[in-house]
């Protein structure tokens, strides 16, 4: 779909335009560090620390600060990355593991930074969110049957929870691709505030293959520029609230 690619690129764009950004990796297979440009080695260090909760090698972090310290790092452009992947060996009530991504987002109510969460594929996390559980949902889709099916459900889930949604039509090659997505989403589901297209981009695919951030190796590529424009919209949306 491009969730991680877009989340990483967006977090950096927001940070560069002056926001304090916390990038929260909530995927069971955390990869946000790669798209942020942190590199495979540092990303794996954070993931190993997280895995250590399961094996007992990493001590639990009952405070938000401890959690951010142990599972987090500074990433390029001043983004703060925290790996918050779901853990199975939880200690009840513990901040670092006992919370699921949706609780984590809720607990961040007083958070002054802009939080960009890379959620697990599908609608699971969104479905567990309470009313207004996030300020904005970016629903990423592609012009394929599977991707559009998931996006329809995600838009519906966002609507039910009164979470404003923007639909990102990723990897589109032609206007017909965007049109297909627009018509497939149809009026029967929660209508997104906007549909934003991110083009299929060979430079992004190459960056991904090499494990590098699109923002570093292809800052002027069409897809990165599109995500930057998305960043401006998000910024305006946040300002208007």
């Amino acid at each position: 779909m491009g969730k991680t690619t877009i989340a990483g690129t967006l977090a950096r764009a927001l940070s560069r335009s002056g926001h304090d950004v916390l990038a929260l990796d909530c995927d069971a297979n955390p990869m946000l560090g790669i798209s942020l440009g942190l590199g495979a080695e540092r990303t794996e260090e954070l993931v190993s620390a997280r895995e250590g909760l399961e094996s007992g090698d990493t001590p639990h972090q009952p405070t938000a600060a401890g959690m951010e310290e142990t599972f987090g790092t500074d990433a390029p452009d001043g983004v703060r990355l925290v790996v918050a992947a779901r853990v199975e060996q939880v200690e009840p009530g513990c901040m670092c593991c006992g919370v699921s991504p949706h609780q984590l987002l809720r607990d961040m109510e007083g958070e002054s930074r802009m939080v960009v969460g890379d959620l697990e594929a599908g609608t699971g996390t969104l479905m567990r969110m309470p009313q207004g559980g996030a300020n904005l949902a970016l629903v990423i889709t592609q012009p394929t049957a599977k991707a559009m099916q998931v996006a329809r459900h995600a838009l519906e889930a966002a609507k039910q929870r009164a979470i404003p949604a923007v639909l990102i039509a990723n990897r589109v090659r032609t206007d017909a691709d965007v049109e297909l997505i627009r018509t497939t989403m149809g009026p029967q589901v929660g209508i997104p505030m906007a549909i934003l297209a991110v083009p299929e981009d060979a430079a992004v695919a190459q960056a991904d293959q090499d494990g590098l951030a699109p923002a570093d190796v292809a800052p002027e590529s069409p897809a990165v520029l599109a995500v930057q424009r998305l960043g401006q919209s998000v910024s305006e949306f946040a300002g208007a609230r």
Partner: protein
Amino acid sequence: MKLAVVGEGRSETTPIGTRGEPLRIAVSGKGGAGKSLVSGILARVLARQHRVLVVDLDVLPGVALSLGRPGGSPVVRGVAPFERLLERLTEPAPDGVRLLPAATYASRGKVGPVLTTLAAFAGASHRLARGRPLARWSIVGDLPAGPRPTAYRQYIAYADVLLVIAEPTVQSILTAQRVLRMSRSRPELAVRVVANKVADEEDAELLERELGEPIFATIPFDEEVRAAERCGEALVDRAPDSPAVVAVEEIVAALRA
């Protein structure tokens, strides 16, 4: 059936099953790596010899599409209580394959009056796989993306072999490494890395080098995959001689070689 063992003294040539014996396979890897595609083709290829149960453990749409729509093929025959149960819980797919949408059931919080949770199903399927009712069935499990401790401990308890599908990209390689790390908690599970969407020899070599694991099989990038998806047909039906199908046929043969 001989089991290949991961770890010390493992032999890559140890057969998982001999010809004629059912295979118990689980398929893992990064999102988009090709798990569902491979699972679907595997099931259809195995169905030429056995009854096949596909366990869909991923909530995302996938293996149902690569299996194809059911035709006029026979559904579960027989009247044994287990087969009636199986017929009730599973959906028909072509060639008599039965599809258990386990993840969908689990996300709705019920599997029915008998099997109330996915974990319960997993435990039951494990016992059943070893017992009479499923003894002659091959089983293919399409796992959710990435390393999933519960899945490895419970949901694929039935499996003899784990296929890790990897693309020649950094994230796919990292995912394969994470999955390999986790699979060590089940040393009796044979693990085989399958390189998918491979363009050339260099791609496969890169994967092997980065993973530090031998590549068991290679599936080339196949244009027919997208074409089949676009018209909503299974690749095995639309292009039975396409490179990806042939490669999966070779995987089945190699697992038994």
